[in-house]
């Protein structure tokens, strides 16, 4: 059985502080600030093309129809697997999608 170390204790104390009511959320939730998004995008194997303007009030928006294009594959990183895996993941791409 793993012995209890000062590192474990410090981690435990930090964890308690983290889970103190409002400590984290108060600083993060619903500020709706814009974060930095890189100007460049990297297309996957079949990416997007042809943009047209979407008529909306106030600012720019575009419409795009999906269509296959040149393979500019992003580097594979963590692979979704039913069991835990560890390994180098190159430039480290993950997927944001519904779940």
């Amino acid at each position, binding site marked *: 059985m793993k012995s209890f170390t000062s590192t474990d204790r410090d981690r435990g104390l930090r964890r308690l502080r983290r889970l103190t009511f409002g400590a984290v959320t108060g600083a993060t939730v619903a500020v709706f600030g814009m974060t930095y998004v890189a100007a460049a995008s990297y297309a996957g194997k079949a990416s997007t093309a042809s943009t047209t303007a979407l008529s909306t009030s106030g600012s720019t928006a575009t419409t795009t129809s999906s269509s296959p294009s040149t393979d500019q594959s992003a580097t594979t990183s963590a692979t979704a697997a039913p069991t835990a895996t560890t390994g180098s993941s190159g430039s480290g791409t993950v997927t*944001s999608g519904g779940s």
Partner: protein
Amino acid sequence: MAVASKTWKALGTSVHVLTTDPHELAAAELAVREILEDVDAAYSRFRADSELSRLNAEAGRTVSVSPLLATAVTTALTAASVTHGAVDPTVGTAIRIAGYDDDFSRITEDRGPVSLRALKVPGWQVVHVDRASQSVFLPAGVELDLGSTGKALAADLAAHAAHTAMHRGGVLVSLGGDIAVAGPPPEGGWRVLIAEDSAVPPDGDGQVICIGNGGVATSSTTVRRWRRGGTILHHIIDPQTGLPASGPWRTVTVVANSCVDANIAATAAIVQGQSAVAWLQARRLPARLVENDGTIHYIGPWPDPSRVAA
């Protein structure tokens, strides 16, 4: 420099932890696992012994709750407030009646028709959180579902905890496609493939964007769907009707200062429908909206998909 990664299953979904320094991966993983264990115990809707299950079972009484559940409920109420009720945690009864009453892996089989009636949910204003006594009051008959904010909040908490536990470098935490980052990113930023389904592999089809901080979240009616009596239902409930949302967007992705902000905005956009365009623009949130026919719209400073970097 190559980043390191670890993947496993928790909270009924895939967990990915990436660190810019491979030597920090173990510390980050441990911190994330601890947070997710706490989250599961605090607000899983499918664990009879979770705090949330007990809170729902004791509606009509004031119940003392842990700091974590109090935080999660407060976050859900804040989400409802800032979205004018489009994202409302009092959809618990509605989503259960619609058939999502168990871990998702166990509800996919069609169990026959369900009787659904359009009825506005009780509304987040009926829920009271007392910060001083750290207690929550739900009126009798009200059930909370923290699904619209809980996972994203967990991603933020986990990324924060992992970064705190690390000595150097940055970390990315993805919980079923809800992504939070903390600390310095890798050169060029964290690369995120935008898809409708988080199960799409990271080298799959689609646009890859880069973020340096904050979070990314995607809400979609194309996943977490089930069938009852031949009718397809999904998990994003419109609080105005208590029924699965039926607007023009099937998938919305938002980038924001935190993962929970991103997820609030993405889910709100699905529920709001067409008016979400102006709502997102007013908040200058980069967003990608997919119409039901597959047409994609980009709002705000979203990276130009026609500019492809090598």
